[in-house]
Structures are given as structure tokens and as C-alpha cells.
């Protein structure tokens, strides 16, 4: 039981990170119907920017942890958003309205480019980070086994919930959110009604990248080690989460992320850690076979 609770806590934390990345996939897919393959690498860049700015702050001498983390969060979100914007501008916008595979290939190229770019600029070795936030509370105790909930895990979950709420409000209530939903339904009609479609799409990428930056920073602080390749697997998992939850649906992305995180954690805990990726992808295949629209997705209507 105690073991189970501990794994539950770990799984929810991991799921929160996946969920944040998955939002970027699901929003972009919803609005322009393409897999933004480079999104995982944008997440990786976010983690790197967080690492670099944290190191710079350490050298400059800002060591009061809450302030330093806040500054790092803002810098990482801003600069990663700039990366997201640039990626869209260079690799996707010229291909809008082109045939279906072109943006996907361009995105794969972008992903390879970004990975190698960071590898060359920052080196291929893993980057360790001294733990910034330590300690936690003990939830349960039984004999030798203690179930602990670290402060880091709390921060991740609370921050994710806060961002999700803010984000859902943004989509539901603001002019920008309305424009996004309009573009999602019918891009031509939206532009006829005076919505700047290109700008809306750009902002979608910016928001997705900013959330990925938060996820990257959380990943960095939680695991304490990153390298240039983390984006690939995290990206696929997050996309799996988005599909699992029903692509195009925000709550779906969060739910999918949570499920993937839980599946992966429990599989590693109770079966074999080596095959945790197989478990995640296996679930994806099963879901797609039996419920192709995902858990919360709307059924697709086939039109002739």
C-alpha cells in the first residue's frame, strides 16, 4: 500500500510534466492539423535555457531560491517562446496550405537541427545540476518504508494546476482564445471575419513553447540532469499523451499526460523498468485501435 502511494505520487508528478508538453502538441494539432515534431526539442531547449540562466544567476550572486527560480522561470518562458515563434516562422509558415506531409518532414528536419544545434553549442555530455529545492514531507510511514512527498513534487503539481487553470481561462474567455477556437473550427471563415490567422497560429506556438519551457525547467529541477536528447523521448511520450486524451482537447492532454505518467511509473515499479516505454506505446496502440479519437476527443466526421 505504502509502495503504491509512493508510486502514485511519482506518477502524478511525471504526468504533470508530460501534460504540460502535451498541451503544446494538442493545441498546434487542433489549430493547423500537424504534428509539431520539433516540440519535444523546444522543451529540451527550455530545459537548457533554465539550466544556463540558473548557472548565470548563481555566478552573479542571486542565490535566494524563490527569487532565482522566478527569474529563471520568466527568462526560460520568454526565450523558449521566442524559439517556438522562430520555428513556426521558418519551418511551418511557408508550408501552410501545402500538402500534408511537407510540414511534417520540415518539422522532423527542424527537430534534427535543434538537437544538433544544442549538441554543438553546449556539448554532448549530460549536464548535472546541484539540487536546488530539497526536502519534503513524510506522508506515511510503515517500518522502514516511508512515503515522502518532496517539495519539488508539490511545486510541480501545483504549478501545473495553476498553469492549466490560467490556460483554460485564456482559451475560454479572452479574445485571443476565441480567435484560436475560431481558427480551429474553420480557418478560412475566421480570416473572413477579420481574425489574423497567421498571428493566432504564431501565438499558439508561443504559448505551447512557453508551457514546454515550464515543463523543461521542472524536468531539470526534478531529475537534476539533462542532455540534448531528452526532447525526443519526452516529446513522443507527450504526443502519445495528447493522442491518448483526444487530440485537440486541452483537458484531454492533461488527462493523457497523467495516464502516461502513471502507466510508466507503475510499470517500472511493478514490472520491469526497461520496458516502460514499450508499456506507454502499447497503451497508445490499444487506445487507438479501440477508441481512435482518444478518451476525450470528439468523433471525427468523414466528409466526402
Amino acid at each position, binding site marked *: 500500500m505504502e509502495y503504491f502511494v509512493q508510486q502514485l505520487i511519482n506518477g502524478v508528478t511525471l504526468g504533470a510534466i508530460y501534460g504540460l508538453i502535451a498541451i503544446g502538441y494538442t493545441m498546434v494539432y487542433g489549430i493547423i492539423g500537424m504534428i509539431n515534431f520539433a516540440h519535444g526539442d523546444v522543451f529540451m531547449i527550455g530545459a537548457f*535555457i533554465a539550466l544556463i540562466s540558473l548557472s548565470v544567476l548563481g555566478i552573479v550572486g542571486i542565490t535566494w531560491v524563490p527569487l532565482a527560480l522566478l527569474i529563471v522561470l520568466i527568462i526560460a518562458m520568454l526565450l523558449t517562446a521566442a524559439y517556438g515563434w522562430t520555428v513556426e516562422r521558418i519551418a511551418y509558415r511557408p508550408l501552410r496550405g501545402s500538402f500534408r506531409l511537407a510540414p511534417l*518532414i520540415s518539422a522532423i528536419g527542424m527537430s534534427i537541427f535543434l538537437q544538433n544545434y544544442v549538441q554543438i553549442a553546449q556539448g554532448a555530455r549530460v549536464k548535472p545540476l546541484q539540487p536546488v529545492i530539497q526536502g519534503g514531507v513524510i506522508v506515511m510511514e510503515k517500518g522502514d518504508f516511508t512515503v515522502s512527498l518532496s517539495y519539488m513534487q508539490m511545486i510541480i503539481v501545483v504549478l501545473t494546476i495553476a498553469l492549466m487553470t490560467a490556460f483554460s481561462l485564456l482559451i475560454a474567455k479572452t479574445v485571443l482564445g476565441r480567435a484560436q477556437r475560431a481558427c480551429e473550427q474553420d480557418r478560412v471563415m475566421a480570416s473572413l471575419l477579420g481574425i489574423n490567422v497567421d498571428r493566432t497560429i504564431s501565438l499558439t506556438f508561443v504559448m505551447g513553447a512557453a508551457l514546454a519551457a515550464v515543463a523543461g525547467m521542472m524536468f531539470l529541477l526534478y531529475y537534476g540532469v539533462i542532455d540534448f536528447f531528452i526532447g525526443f523521448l519526452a516529446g513522443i511520450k507527450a504526443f502519445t499523451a495528447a493522442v491518448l486524451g483526444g487530440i485537440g482537447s486541452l483537458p484531454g492532454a492533461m488527462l493523457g499526460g497523467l495516464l502516461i505518467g502513471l502507466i510508466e511509473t507503475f510499470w517500472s515499479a511493478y514490472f520491469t523498468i526497461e520496458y516502460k516505454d514499450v508499456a506507454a506505446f502499447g497503451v497508445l496502440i490499444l487506445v487507438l485501435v479501440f477508441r481512435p479519437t482518444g478518451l476525450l476527443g470528439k468523433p471525427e466526421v468523414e466528409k466526402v
Partner: protein
Amino acid sequence: MATENRTTQQGVGQTALEGLDLPAIAKDSFMAAVLVLALAVPIIGLRTVPAPQGLDIEGRWTGVAIAVAAAFAGRFLLNIWWAQRRSRQRAAQLAAPALDIGAYVQTFAKYIGPVLIVVAVALPWTPFASRYVLDVGILVLTYIMLGWGLNIVVGLAGLLDLGYVAFYAVGAYSYALIAQYFDWSFWVCLPLAGGFAAFFGILLGFPVLRLRGDYLAIVTLGFGEIVRVILLNWYDLTNGPDGVSKIPRPSFFGLPFDRSPDQASESFHGFFGLEYSSLHRIIFLYYLILVLAMVTNLFTLRIRKLPVGRAWEALREDEIACRSLGINPTNTKLTAFAIGAMFGGFAGSFFATRQGFISPESFTFVESAVILAIVVLGGMGSQIGVVVASVLLIGGTELFRELEEFRMLAFGAAMVLIMIWKPRGLLAHRDPTLRLGSAGVGKEAT
């Protein structure tokens, strides 16, 4: 202001710098430079270096300066080029349609194909056929074969497969393991490897082929990863990350290419009375992959004319129409998937026998991406396009071997740029397979 500009431009015609809005261009380039500055400062400018206490930062401002200058200059030139193209297009409107390389190549495909084959066959006998050239040739031909195999799935049947490398891996491991455990020869294992790969194709295809487009892409990607993870962790069978080594080399109808084979068998050079040369094996491998690739090509060209090939292409164009005409989409897609996988398996066992050593590291997602890129960059469905793209991408990056770390960077950038330049691929021109009447209507049927 804008209309004024346009009239002067039209009046002047093609003169270069006239009518360019230089201040606007400068401003635009400046903005690009500022953006690149913001992007480059953290990643390029501040390099993290390991230090006793966590990480230290090392400034590298020349790199940032180069990136910013390149962004400014590049954007500036791009703007000028765009402006010129605009004015030229206006001047040359309705004059002549743009040159369509694809159509051009298609017209001459009858001649280009045989010429390429003759060149490929003659290559080992030309004076500059060093070991290095042949190795690159073998590599390029392997990718051409993989590209042709995937072309059946992606180009003809229109199924986006991001996990093609899984079948390549299945083929390679089938041969390596069968050869290791049963000691069967390459020529027995080759069809077996293809069969195994096709079986895996059916195994994967059966549940997932009713998915569409991107969903299929992501599931195949997941499948590719699953196969790799299993190869990595099933230590008893596959030897895990250490890979399978000492894979037997192929023999020339039973004649090995060794310098001094054991008494039982005669060697290739002994049988033909030649002096021993290590090049013999390389040349043999070169011809082997050439033949395998040509078989793939011929197979594709022929099957396109059979009902099942026609059904693939019809399915790619319109699935609903196909279903209403009584084509079973699942079975049709399954055949495409299985046949594509089979050729992937053949290529895989060739890879295993050439390398003599395989490990899961050779079968990562990047391989799938490269093969898919070859198919799409070449122009989906175009057989010659695959050749051109393989030569450019594989041969091209091979030329930059010395710049090891920048190789994949350039590869990624090239993928993006080619897509922006020609979204349908370099040689994306396709005449309809069937045409009603003799009129040349519907030039592009894609």
C-alpha cells in the same frame, strides 16, 4: 506610396535595385538580427562547462556575433531576392510557365534510368573506384533500396510510416541470429529475413491500418521504438546493447572471399585464378546491393500496373471512393505494408552481412526519418527522385565527414530548406497512371 512604387517598378521592368524599399529591408533584417541575438545568447553564447561546484559558464561571444551577422546578411539578401523575384514575375507574367524539373525528368526517365544503371554497373571498373568510393556507393545504394521499399508504403499507398527502421532491424537481426544459431548461409537467410519482416509488417499493420494519416505515423513511430527497446533489452537473444558480432559474410555461390579459407572450400580468388584482393568482397557487396535495389525497383514498377498497385494509388487519392468501389482498404494497405516491410528486411540482412556487426544503435528513429526524408524530398512516388535524394543526402553528407559534428545539423537544415523550396519534393511530377482519351488534360494528377 505603394502604388507609386509598383508603377515605377513596372515601368522599369527588370532593373535590379530600382524600386527596392531599402530602409524597410534594413529594418526587417535588423529585427531578424535582434531575434537571433536573443536566441543565440543563452544557447551559443553561454556554454555550460563542468566545474567542481556544479556548472560554470564560459562566454563564447564570437559565435553569437557570427550568428547575428549571418542572420542580418541572410535576411537582407533574402529580402532583395524576394523583391527581385516579385518584379521579375510581374514582368514575365504569362510569358512562360515555370520550368518543371519533375516533368522534364519524367519525359527523359526512359533514358535517365538506363544511363544511371550503366553508370552504377560500371563504377567499380572506373579508375577512381577506390575502397572509399565503393563503400559510399554501397551506403547510397542501401538507402536507395530502403527508399524504394518505403516508397511502396508512403509514395504509392500514401501510408505515413515513421517506423520503417523497425523492419530494417527485423531483417538485420533475423539474418544475424539465424546465421549465428543455425549456421545457415546468407542466401537461405535472405528470403527468410524478408519473410520475417513482412510478418512483422502484417502484425503491426493489422490493428493499426484503419487509423488515418498522422495517427498511423505516430503508431508506427511507437512500433519502431518498441522494436528497438526489445532488441536492447532481450539480452539472452539479441545480446542487448553489445549487439551481434561475427556475422558471416556472404559467399559467391559458395566461394568465400577469404585469403586462405579452410581446406574444405576453395576461395573466390583461387577458383577464378585471380590474385587475392580485399576489394573483391567490396565489389561483390556493391553488386549485391545493386541487384537487390534493382529487384525492388523492378518489382515496384511492375506491381504498379497490377490491380493491387492500382488499388494502392487509388487508395492514396481517395479512400472513400475506393471503399464504394468495392476495394477492401485494410487488405490493400496490408499488402503495401507487408511488401514494403519485406524489402526493408532484405536491406536489413544485407546491412548485417556487410557490417558483420549490428547493434540496436543502428536502428534509431533518425534512420526512419532519414529514409522518409529521402522518399519525400525526392518526390513521393518518384523512383528516380529517391535516387537523387539518396545521392544528395547520403552522398552529400558523406562528403562532409570531416565536419563530423556539423553533418547532422546541415542535414536537418537541408530537410527544412528543401521542403520550403519544393514542398512536393525535388522531382514531384507524376502523370496519371491511366488517362482517358489522348488529350493531355489533368497534367498533374496528385
